[in-house]
């Protein structure tokens, strides 16, 4: 892949990027490193929220594409990506709701093992926002403040959503 020829060792740490008005093209090395460190994690988060592998990849790729021109200006690319992925996932779920309203429900995700199926079903019963909170806390292991930033809400909302979401999930896992 020709893009890898742009990789520069010793580039700035993408997580240490600070706000800047510099409109220069971002250093591909840092951007690519951000991709390498975050892509798989974000795709799994989106997959847990959405339930569709293909849609999850689309949402995460959209988030990375949106990040590129802003890479040197955003304070934390990872926080930006989490927020984009959560927003993108919720938008995808909203579009799916529209599809269902016109009588075209998407194909149900295929999960092989019964226990996984059960987890998927339990997740799908949570409202999208609450589902995102649970996934970000218990799978991505984000702090409450980080989740609040990703969802654009307060930590109080995160706590209450987490409490309710966990209560619903426990009914499944403690059976």
């Amino acid at each position, binding site marked *: *892949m020709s893009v890898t020829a742009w990789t520069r060792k010793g580039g700035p740490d993408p997580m240490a990027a600070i706000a800047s008005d510099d409109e220069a093209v971002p250093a591909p090395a840092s951007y690519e490193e951000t*991709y390498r460190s975050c892509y798989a994690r974000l795709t799994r988060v989106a997959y847990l929220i959405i339930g569709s592998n293909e849609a999850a990849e689309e949402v995460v790729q959209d988030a990375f594409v949106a990040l590129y021109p802003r890479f040197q200006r955003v304070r934390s690319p990872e926080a930006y990506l989490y927020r984009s992925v959560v927003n993108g996932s919720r938008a995808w779920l909203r579009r799916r709701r529209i599809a269902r309203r*016109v009588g075209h429900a998407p194909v149900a995700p295929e999960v092989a093992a019964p226990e996984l199926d059960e987890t998927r079903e339990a997740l799908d019963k949570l409202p999208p926002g609450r589902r995102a909170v649970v996934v970000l806390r218990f799978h991505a292991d984000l702090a409450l403040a980080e989740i609040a930033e990703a969802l654009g809400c307060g930590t109080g909302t995160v706590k209450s959503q987490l409490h309710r979401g966990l209560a619903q999930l426990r009914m499944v896992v403690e059976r």
Partner: protein
Amino acid sequence: MSSDTPTSDAEVTRRLDELAATATLDPEAWDKIAARAGIAGAPGWRWRRARRWLPAAAAVMVLAGIGASLLVGDEPDRVETSSSGGPDPAEAGNGGPGSDGRSMAPCPSQAGIACVERAEGDVDGDGAVDAVALFYELVDRPPAGRDAAAITVRVAYATGETEEVTLDGSGHAARLVGVADLDGDERDEVVYVVARVADTSVGGFAGTAGTGALHPVGFDEPTALFGASLELIAGFSCPDLDGDGVRELVMSHASLRDGTATLTTQTYRWVGDRLEPDGGRREEDEPADDRRAGQIRSEVRGPRCGGLDEPGL
């Protein structure tokens, strides 16, 4: 809270991790991102970079009624307009001037069409009520299900004619802001916003209909409105702030962080047939809990520019 029962918390984490592990990763993901982002060296980067804003930019040009045939020739599957001489068969009950606008149905009644929002207004200024709709055309994208392929804004005139603008809807979201006479020409403008769902910049457009062809007004290129995706933009309103008979377009956004609600507003005024920002964005902070923040969002979300008969999604 999560620390109450560590065993079940761990069990929830284990279950989620196991389910997440079933996700597969596209080995060509980086190539796709690099190409779409326009990173030099990626296959097709020049074309893809130029194409990022093309649907939105093209839509404005079509609204202008100039270069439409050129654009349609270049991108026939992305942008097109239509203007039919007779009634649209999908618009049952279109009874002409003075008829009940609600009986008009500008959204096609067929499978695969999701009618997002409808509105009414006098778009061509003939004194009769015209119907406006924004709808998505959905296509199969297995295994993800159905996804938006096109976003269409259609005007069904009381005379029986229809006009529409269609944009590429993939990965985009759109809202009909309202139908109102913004520039004081006694013809209502159709105001709508299109945004990439995962993007933080938003393109906003206003278009008006006139003498048989949609005519451009408003923004002539995608305009970043707020640092938020479309669903977080709280509201739009069209007050006549200075009482000169020409309405301004006010866009508002409410957010909550660390117990402080911030209401950001930006006013746009007409300069010729263009909307220009009137000064900078105004921010007002107030201490707020989640409940108060919800109230603020609801207030800002309230009535938009008039003419809407269905709430947005």
